[in-house]
């Protein structure tokens, strides 16, 4: 048994297998059950430790050699595997209700495997290549074969591809700066190259236009999956850089840059959401704002930054899943999902309407919802550093809140006499109801996911200790 085989090769094989099936339900069961099983294995069976099961001895080896390089998954990465595969199962089980199971699950499994490989590959710099391959695989997911390709997907492809050369060059230069850290000119060159690379990958302001364009062009659920997984992997890759290079980790300028970039993302995302009339684009702005929050969490520094960053993961993925599933429900009957077309729809689609509004409010950090505890910690941390930063954080949050209130107002603005109905399918009702329940559960009892989250930083040798 070998960890990379279990968590990388098996999902890749399954991705190929599931693409052969035609029935959405079979694909959902296969994909969802496998990812859940993989999450369970990573939770229960430690890597590189012999387990005696009766007369048998079981041990999962941590590494695999491919073309002279190693792919290593240690026990430190297990919480990350549990979270990633667990959340992927959540996305896959909702795929049928969103009507994208046949497209999402085969491609999603392959992307997931590649992104896990990007965390495990050594040297870690090669992750840039794997992320690029994952981005290429995402194109058929974001551009359905029966629809002419739009500007969003083309821009996505350009930005993700351009990122790779910059990061690989920067990585090569970083080896040189380790030998002579006092070379200021070299450090500046590295900063520019790395900054450009990550700006393209993470859709940093002003390079996030593809998110907004795609939010209008494609299935919200498919886009939501990519917007959950791709930035997460890139952020983990970025943390890898900080973990490997001391001068980056200890650079006050990097903290400043992260803070400014994070605030720029949060404020522009928040203000965009406040004035947006297209529900998909509004979700896109919220994703931009949440990427900003992740950057702000990393910029906190000290012992708090990495735990806060990881605390953001689950509420973000859960909220995004509910939000995009609800949007997909609307997209099946109303196109485009603009304010004028969804007006009063809360009476006809109460679950989807509740999903959109509550996911939006969770992104804002309203008490009782999953996003609240971590936003409180983050805001408090930022206010200890600078009141100005905390103020702009508040502006961004206010923008998101304005977007949520406007959406709520439009959705409930039904003509007098409209009867309450539930036009969602039973599957959509069940999934949305369950999701909203978990959103409240995590808001009321955030400590229930803490045992897994607490060990996530251990994947990083320096940052996590």
């Amino acid at each position, binding site marked *: 048994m070998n960890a990379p085989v279990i968590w990388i090769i098996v999902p890749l094989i399954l991705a190929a297998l599931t693409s052969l099936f035609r029935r959405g339900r079979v694909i959902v069961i296969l994909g969802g059950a496998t990812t859940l099983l993989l999450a369970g294995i990573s939770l229960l069976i430690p890597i590189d430790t012999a387990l005696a099961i009766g007369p048998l001895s079981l041990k999962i080896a941590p590494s695999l050699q*491919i073309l002279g*390089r190693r792919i290593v998954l240690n026990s430190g990465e297990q919480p990350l595997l549990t979270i990633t595969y667990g959340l992927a199962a959540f996305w896959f089980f909702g795929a049928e209700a969103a009507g994208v199971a046949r497209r999402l699950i085969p491609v999603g499994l392959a992307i997931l495997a590649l992104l896990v490989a990007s965390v495990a590959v050594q040297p870690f710099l090669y992750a840039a290549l794997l992320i690029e391959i994952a981005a*290429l695989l995402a*194109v058929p997911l974001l551009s359905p074969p*029966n629809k*002419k*390709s739009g500007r969003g997907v083309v821009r996505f492809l350009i930005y993700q*591809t351009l990122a790779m*050369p910059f990061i690989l060059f920067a990585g090569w230069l970083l080896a040189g700066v380790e030998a002579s850290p006092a070379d200021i000119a070299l450090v500046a060159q590295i900063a520019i190259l790395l900054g450009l690379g990550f700006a393209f990958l993470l859709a940093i302001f002003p390079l996030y236009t593809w998110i907004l364009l795609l939010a209008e062009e494609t299935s919200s659920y498919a886009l939501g999956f990519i917007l959950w997984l791709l930035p997460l992997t890139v952020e983990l890759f970025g943390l890898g850089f900080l973990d490997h290079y001391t001068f980056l980790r200890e650079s006050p300028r990097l903290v400043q840059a992260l803070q400014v970039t994070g605030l720029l993302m949060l404020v522009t995302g928040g203000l965009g959401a406040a004035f947006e009339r297209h529900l998909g684009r509004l979700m896109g702005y919220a994703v931009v704002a949440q990427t900003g929050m992740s950057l702000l969490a990393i910029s906190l520094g000290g012992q708090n930054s990495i735990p806060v960053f990881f605390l953001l993961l689950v509420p973000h993925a859960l909220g995004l899943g509910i939000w995009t599933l609800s949007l997909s429900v609307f997209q099946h009957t109303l196109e485009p999902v603009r304010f004028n077309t969804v007006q009063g729809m809360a009476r006809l689609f109460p679950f989807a309407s509740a999903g959109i509004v509550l996911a939006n409010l969770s992104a804002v950090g309203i008490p009782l919802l999953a996003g609240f505890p971590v936003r409180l910690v983050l805001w408090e941390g930022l206010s200890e550093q600078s009141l100005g930063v905390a103020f702009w954080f508040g502006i961004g949050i206010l923008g998101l809140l304005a977007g949520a209130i406007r959406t709520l107002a439009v959705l409930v603005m039904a003509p007098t006499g409209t009867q309450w109905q539930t036009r969602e399918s039973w599957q959509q009702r069940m999934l949305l109801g369950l999701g909203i329940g978990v959103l409240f559960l995590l808001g009321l009892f955030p400590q229930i996911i803490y045992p897994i989250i607490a060990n996530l930083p251990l994947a990083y040798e320096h940052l996590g200790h």
Partner: protein
Amino acid sequence: MLIEIISWTAAVVLVVTSVGLLISRDWRWSLGLLAVQYLGMFWLVRLHWPLAMAAVKLVTGWMAGSALNITRIGLAKDSNDDEEAWPQARLFRLLAAALVLLVVISATPRVNNVLPGIGLPAVFGGLILFGMGLLHLGITIRPLRVILGLLTVLSGFEIIYAALEGSVLVAALLAGINLGLALVGSYLLTAGPEPKTEESL
């Protein structure tokens, strides 16, 4: 000395092909120029890599071009990538290409100092492809043109990176990315509603 002359010839070929890609309006010419571009790239990569590994770049590039060619042949005649803004567009592109060329000429010695041991022709060839590819990406949104631009950018990057990194895994992944880009391009070119045939009518 002979190698130096051939290397500079390859670099000049890259200038011609990349500018040609930028101004050509016929997709057949574009794909032909791409094939020649990979020949020039092969030679410059060959300076640092063994023949077998450098040949991978050439074969992959040609495979990518073939995939795009086969897809494009199968498409209707009216879905061409011709630009209609002649003569202004072509003139503008030539001027922009000249600007990129000037920037590359001035930057080559500096980059050569930062990345010693690569050699001026490889640095020049790499930068010219990178620059022209970026320019190409900046002025088009059509899928075929975008893929050609991205393949050009990647070729430029690969010429320089070959001197820095000789890993087989990286070579394999980059080959996969080039092929993947071509396949994605083919997918984007063919994506769209099914055309109504007589039978379906």
